[in-house]
């Protein structure tokens, strides 16, 4: 039988899916580099956050909880830093952002 915590974890894991799909969809559909960066830094990090939260509920020890948190924070920092670096590089290279015609 599923416990309440399992049910909650399962719901969180399922909830992460639409965000990962949105990240890929944004990557494919959005008109320029800058908009695609938005999709990557936000949708995917939220998806990972939900997975991490789900697994935290299942963790056997506090150490495991902290390590999961560390992974999420690392991915967050890396994603945000890289997004900024790529955007800055693109701007410096003279790439004008797409505008609604």
């Amino acid at each position: 039988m599923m416990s309440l915590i399992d049910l909650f974890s399962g719901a969180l894991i399922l909830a992460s899916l639409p965000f990962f799909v949105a990240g890929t969809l944004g990557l494919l559909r959005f008109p320029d580099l800058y908009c695609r960066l938005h999709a990557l830094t936000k949708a995917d990090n939220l998806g990972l956050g939900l997975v991490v939260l789900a697994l935290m509920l299942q963790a056997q020890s506090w150490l495991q909880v902290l390590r999961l948190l560390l992974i999420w924070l690392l991915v967050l920092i890396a994603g945000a830093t890289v997004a900024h670096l790529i955007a800055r590089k693109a701007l410096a290279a003279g790439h004008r952002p797409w505008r609604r015609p």
Partner: protein
Amino acid sequence: MTSLSLIVALILLLTIALGLIRVLRGPTPTDRMLAAQLFGTTAVAILLLLGFATHSPVMTDVALVFALLTAVAAVTFVRRAEVDPMAPEQDVDDVPD
């Protein structure tokens, strides 16, 4: 929970495969790098889910290393891209749209 984690991990793998379209199309090297970033985040999620489903806590370490490496790889790319990162590549074997 175990089978759910495995199914979700598989679907995530599918989103990575779809993201490969952006890698193929580019049009700029930076667009290709974006896809690699997407893989970084998604692959970490897949590793965590697999680790949970197969009861192998060592997967957490793999995910951790993956998270670190993605960051290093992406920063290296941006620092090293001295050629105009926005110019479409002139590869002969480039995939036509």
